[in-house]
């Protein structure tokens, strides 16, 4: 490979989109052309040719103005370029003058740098603060309302006082739950890029979680069935407390949404490939809410299957969104904090595992989480 071929290959392979633009005259619109577009630029700007009219690749007025500034004033310029479509991206555009070529053409280099992530993080934080304060305001408003009533005309009404104190207790509990969830979510997020240490026996752990959830299940008349639990151990890499939280949140949800007297099935399988672990047993619409990067790991999968009302397809993508609850769930016996699945998702991300939901209205729901197993990957079971 000659030096110039190598340069060409390097430019083409650069992950950031790059364009080289020429222009002859400020008034000549069609004369502004791109004479080099690397693979990333062709993908970003949806062009097929390696050269062509600049306007056929970019028509954002700010970017065009930046290009003109670099071409004809030989000044560095910057701009923001946003793509439209389902996954809109936001890129910082930098234009540098490359001087004047032999034929008198002005040359400029245009580079794009993806800043979508940064902007999204900013936005999520703003949304999160707004949501969290909104969620706390509701129980707080009800608390202060009842306090006012108790200090006022209900002061000596024993029956009303007992009733109000009961409601106040519920609201205070709700606030406490919300704050606990918020704290644990922010801690999990902080550690999301720190791989968990330690190994955990899932069989033992799930057994404990089921026992812990038994009182709630009994209260709702829901039967918890574990099957088929092979005797022995299933060791996965992970942090015990967090995995317990995952199992508890999934069990809580399943119990909460099960009709009275129905069963919740808990299945544990080990030695699976990622494909087999993420597969759903039934032919329900399924969606992966978290998935590990492809790797040759073997996984242990835990499925929690309920016979509740199920979730409509259009609501599936929003399930792990913070404070999202399917319509009509904001109040009543089934009210939760709206953070449970967000917590599960973040823990699974940290554990390099996955979270899959399969559900349809009236068909119940299956939530699957899978963890990479401890020890060397061996005996991978292929999904058919």
């Amino acid at each position: 490979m000659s030096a110039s071929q190598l340069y060409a290959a390097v430019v083409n392979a650069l992950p950031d989109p790059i364009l080289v633009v020429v222009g002859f005259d400020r008034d000549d619109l069609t004369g502004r052309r791109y004479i080099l577009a690397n693979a990333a630029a062709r993908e970003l700007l949806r062009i097929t040719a390696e050269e062509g009219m600049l306007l056929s690749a970019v028509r954002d007025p700010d970017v065009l103005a930046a290009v003109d500034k670099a071409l004809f004033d030989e000044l560095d310029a910057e701009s923001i370029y946003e793509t439209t479509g389902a996954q809109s991206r936001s890129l910082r555009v930098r234009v540098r003058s490359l001087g004047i070529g032999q034929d008198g053409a002005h040359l400029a280099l245009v580079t794009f740098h993806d800043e979508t992530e940064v902007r999204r993080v900013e936005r999520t934080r703003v949304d999160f603060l707004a949501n969290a304060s909104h969620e706390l305001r509701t129980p707080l408003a009800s608390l202060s309302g009842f306090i006012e009533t108790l200090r006022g005309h209900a002061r000596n009404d024993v029956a009303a006082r007992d009733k109000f104190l009961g409601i106040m207790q519920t609201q205070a509990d709700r606030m406490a739950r919300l704050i606990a969830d918020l704290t644990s979510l922010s801690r999990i997020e902080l550690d999301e890029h720190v791989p968990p240490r330690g190994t955990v026996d899932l069989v033992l752990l799930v057994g404990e979680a089921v026992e812990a959830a038994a009182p709630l299940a009994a209260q709702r008349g829901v039967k918890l069935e574990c099957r088929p639990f092979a005797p022995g151990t299933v060791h996965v890499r992970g942090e015990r407390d967090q995995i317990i939280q995952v199992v508890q949140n999934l069990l809580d949800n399943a119990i909460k949404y099960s009709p009275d007297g129905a069963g919740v099935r808990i299945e544990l399988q080990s030695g699976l490939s990622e494909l087999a672990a993420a597969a759903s047993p039934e032919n329900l619409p399924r969606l992966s809410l978290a998935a590990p990067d492809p790797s040759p790991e073997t996984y242990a999968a835990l499925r929690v299957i309920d016979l509740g009302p199920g979730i409509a397809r259009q609501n599936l993508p929003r399930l792990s969104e913070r404070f999202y609850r399917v319509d009509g769930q904001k109040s009543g016996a089934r009210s939760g904090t709206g953070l449970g699945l967000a917590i599960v998702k973040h823990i699974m991300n940290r554990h390099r595992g996955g979270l899959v939901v399969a559900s349809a209205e009236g068909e119940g729901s299956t939530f699957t989480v899978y963890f990479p197993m401890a020890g060397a990957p061996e005996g991978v079971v292929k999904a058919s």
Partner: protein
Amino acid sequence: MNEHIIKSYEDELNSLAAECVRMGGLTEAQVADAVTAVVKRNQDLASAVVGRDDRLDAAERDIERKTIRLIALRQPVADDLRRAVAAMKVANNLERCGDLAKNIAKRALVIIESDPLTPLTRSIERMGKLVLGRLSTVLDAYSHSDLERALAVWSQDDEVDEHYNSLFRELLTYMIGDPRTITACAHMLFVAKNLERIGDHATNIAEIIHYQITGDEMVAGRPKTDELRD
């Protein structure tokens, strides 16, 4: 396509199309900024959109003047005539889109004065994204003379209508629930209507592209869901 004997004739036609594309870019930016001004409650951005509308008007006049000049001097026929006429019509539609964007920005200035209506602005944002996507696809189709992409835009007109209808209902619920929101909601309704009309202009441009490339008018009726009477 045959090369024209006089090179500058071809150049003139090409630069006419190029100017339309550049005007398209301006229009996209105006629409995007107008929607952002509503969503982010950004007063400066709204004023900027209102101020920039002149540039679109000037661009339209310029394209019209150049087209008329080209038709008068070169007397184009067939393909070339259609390209010239299409450029003028596209510019026309884009100018209308610009006016609608300016109107959205003016309403944003009023909406900003009342309390935020977050769920509604979310819906406006979604609809804005959809409409902008269509405008952008149709302009891609125009700049690459891509009939298929133009037809894709043309056949998906009902999606915008559905968004508009659901926003309409959402707004009614708000206004019934709290009469204090009526001013802001009424303006939001026009914002949504303007977005819907920008979507219609995108469909018009798709039809113009079809005419420019094939020489035929589109005859089949557009898919349309009209739920005004429900």
